[in-house]
């Protein structure tokens, strides 16, 4: 028996300079950051206040930061693919096939699971409790566990860069290619275990947010007064609860095939690969709405704020959201029209797919009517929203085209499809994440982001997007299949060049965002948001100071109508002071910070790694560790920390004073 299972020196790709150099660079950067943290004496602060934090705001910030870092990783993969396709006409390019295959698989996996998901979940975590007027989520420690399990998945995927290899079978591991017979390496195992672990985190987060929204709203905040972002968060998390177990179970079946010789999806012994496609898309289609619904929520908030009007058709927005929540479980077959379910089945699912465009259209019109007659302020979040509306409609229309089964027979699996889904997911999710990032950044950190660099980033991104993806529609119509490492058709190459230029423009956009962050931190005093409402907002998060105190609200706000905060603000503006009387402050109990989440994730990584490399003693060790963590947590005596009322009063009175000053000076 080998002590390290399948692991030996051959796992390290010494012969492949690109991953090795990239991995080395990442390791150096991480070590550098860790060294800096220790040298500066920040370690206790980082550990106590961030890693162990169970504060939903900090957890939200960490989710978003994780997503942004992984966006860079995913984008580097994209840039490599784009440049490869530019040069790979009649030649092998610079990326050998087995490497290219890992790149598109890693790109897709990372972008969906470790960029889009954590970004959206991070925004929901940060914003939802503030908008609901509550002090924390329902299960704060579980929230931290969810975050760190996601991070565990990220770590495993990135580990595969230098230890072993990543999956080569695409962002969804379709069997029989992903079965042991055809993918004997550890790549698919890395993929599966990373997603099993982070999937549990996602599910836990979903349960947490649904409970929070259903059970913990401020007094008076009935369902029909809830901000639309909370509604979309509710729908999205309900879908997480319904859909993610399907993903977990499907990947578990694939793992059983690979590890224990089962035959769920094999070619032989009664296995059925088509069942995999069926199951994975039962999760996969809802997944896109899990991502896009909260994004729609962000746009709703942004459009209403920057148009200075209540959201048009608030109730129709709720209905549309919940309709999408259900219909999105009715369309999954459109991802495998061509697999041969036949005309009847294809027809039903094709029509159901087109019907989803109706509630989505309702939303678009609602945003347009919200802008109509308003005084639109073209600040950065609003720019992202407008770019979204235009671009997303194009992507939606190509989606309806693909929902026509006969058309799909020609377009599926080629670059038209790739263009379509980037055309919906980038404006639909990424732009919303950016809009939300700029919009809520001052709430999180107390100062705004630089406007000029934000606009520069916006233009580079949007122009880059069109340049990078419109050519893909043409290439698709010219018949170029997706996932091509090299090709021999001359007509495709010019378009590939255009797409590369687009990717380079996006690269400039990302660079602008980095610069924007640095510049804003430098100029934070000028950009300071001193009373908590920088955009003239309408929902409850803007009643808190920026950044909000740990307990968010010194007293629970009492909600008496839609747009809870706007009404209060109107009254305050009239009288030029806060109209709510100074409350009787009370001691507040807040959950204690806890290393449970981080420790859990540590053992989860250990177990994942052990499973991937068949190191069974390590698996046992990891399991014992994880179980011990559970026991320690379950038997803890101290759950909460008291914030004395004097402290609460001090913080709140100071904030009231600042806001009163702003009101007197007419700045609010």
């Amino acid at each position, binding site marked *: 028996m080998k002590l390290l299972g399948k692991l030996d020196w051959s796992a390290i790709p010494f012969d492949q300079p690109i991953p090795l150099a990239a991995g080395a660079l990442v390791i150096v950067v991480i070590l550098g950051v860790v060294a800096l943290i220790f040298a500066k004496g920040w370690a206790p602060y980082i550990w106590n206040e961030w890693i162990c934090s169970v504060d939903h705001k900090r957890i939200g910030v960490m989710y978003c930061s994780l997503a942004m870092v992984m966006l860079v990783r995913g984008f580097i993969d994209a840039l490599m693919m784009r440049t490869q396709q530019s040069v790979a006409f009649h030649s092998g390019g610079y990326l050998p096939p087995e490497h290219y295959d890992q790149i598109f698989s890693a790109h897709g996996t990372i972008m969906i699971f470790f960029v889009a998901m954590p970004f959206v979940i991070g925004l929901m975590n940060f914003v939802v409790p503030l908008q609901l007027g509550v002090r924390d989520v329902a*299960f*704060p*420690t579980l929230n931290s566990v969810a975050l760190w399990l996601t991070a565990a998945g990220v770590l495993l995927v990135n580990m595969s860069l230098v230890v072993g290899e990543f999956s080569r079978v695409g962002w969804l591991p379709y069997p029989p290619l992903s079965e042991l017979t055809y993918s004997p390496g550890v790549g698919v195992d890395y993929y599966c275990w990373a997603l099993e672990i982070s999937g549990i985190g996602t599910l836990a987060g979903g349960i947490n947010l*649904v*409970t929070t929204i*259903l*059970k*913990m709203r401020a007094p008076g905040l009935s369902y029909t007064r809830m901000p639309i972002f909370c509604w979309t968060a509710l729908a999205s998390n*309900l879908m997480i609860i*319904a859909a993610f177990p*399907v993903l977990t179970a499907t990947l578990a079946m694939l793992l059983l095939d690979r590890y224990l010789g089962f035959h769920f999806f094999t070619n032989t012994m009664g296995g*059925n690969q*088509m*069942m995999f496609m*069926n*199951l994975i898309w*039962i999760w996969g289609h809802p997944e896109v709405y899990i991502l896009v619904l909260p994004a729609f929520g962000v746009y709703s908030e942004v459009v209403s704020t920057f148009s200075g009007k209540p959201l048009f058709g608030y109730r129709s927005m709720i209905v549309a959201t919940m309709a999408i929540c*259900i219909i999105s*479980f*009715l369309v*999954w*077959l459109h991802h495998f029209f061509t*697999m*041969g*379910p*036949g*005309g*009847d*089945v*294809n027809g039903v699912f094709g029509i159901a797919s087109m019907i989803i465009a109706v509630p989505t259209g309702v939303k678009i019109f609602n945003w347009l009517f919200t802008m109509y007659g308003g005084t639109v302020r073209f600040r950065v979040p609003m720019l992202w929203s407008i770019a979204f509306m235009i671009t997303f409609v194009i992507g939606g229309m190509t989606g309806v085209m693909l929902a026509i*089964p006969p058309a799909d027979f020609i377009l599926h699996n080629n670059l038209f499809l790739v263009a379509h889904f980037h055309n919906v997911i980038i404006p639909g999710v990424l732009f919303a994440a950016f809009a939300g990032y700029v919009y809520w950044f001052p709430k999180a950190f107390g100062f705004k982001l630089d406007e000029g660099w934000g606009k520069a980033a916006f233009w580079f991104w949007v122009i880059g997007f069109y340049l990078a993806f419109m050519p893909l529609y043409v290439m698709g119509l010219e018949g170029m299949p997706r996932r091509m490492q090299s090709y021999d058709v001359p007509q495709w190459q010019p378009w590939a060049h255009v797409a590369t230029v687009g990717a380079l423009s996006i690269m400039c956009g990302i660079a602008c965002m980095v610069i924007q962050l640095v510049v804003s931190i430098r100029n934070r005093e000028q950009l300071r948001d001193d009373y908590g409402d920088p955009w003239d907002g309408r929902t409850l998060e803007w009643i808190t100071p920026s950044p909000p105190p740990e307990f968010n609200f010194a007293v629970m706000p009492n909600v008496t109508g839609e747009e809870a905060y706007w009404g209060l603000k109107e009254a305050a503006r009239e009288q030029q002071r806060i109209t709510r009387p100074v409350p009787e402050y009370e001691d*507040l*109990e807040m*959950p204690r910070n806890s290393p449970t989440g981080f420790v859990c994730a540590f053992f989860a990584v250990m177990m994942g790694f052990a499973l991937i490399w068949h190191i069974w003693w390590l698996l046992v060790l990891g399991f014992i560790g994880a179980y011990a963590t559970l026991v320690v947590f379950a038997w803890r005596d101290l*759950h*909460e920390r008291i914030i004395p009322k004097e402290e609460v009063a001090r913080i709140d009175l100071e904030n009231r004073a600042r806001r009163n000053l702003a009101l007197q000076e007419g700045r609010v």
Partner: protein
Amino acid sequence: MTDHHSEDIAHRVEGGDVAPGDVIHGEFTAGWRTYVLGLAIAIGLTIASFWVAQTHLIYGPAIDMALATLAVAQMGIHLIFFLHITTGPDNTNNVLALAFGILVVFLVIFGSIWIMIHMNQSMMPPTGMPAPQSGGM
């Protein structure tokens, strides 16, 4: 999640809304007794399903049905005794959530069966017969 939580619960009970697991005085599902009872019934049903699978007392082709019935009963027991689903007015959220869950499960199971049957038809036209029309794409 303890003290201020129970305060919250009191507050929410007034508001007419209770989370699963919140123990309310005098309610049918409160107390450990019901957990023990639930556990006993659940174990009983489990044993019954093992017995059904092996027995000759039941008409062979009906065993599948019997197992399915026992499984549904098992779910019901879990919902009532462990997840505290009741029909009380304070349970609207839970019932709605359950309805959503059942809808999705229904869609997934029957949708999959429908799809897979058609897929199999296209895969394996029975020898000697023309391929079925609906699978002819």
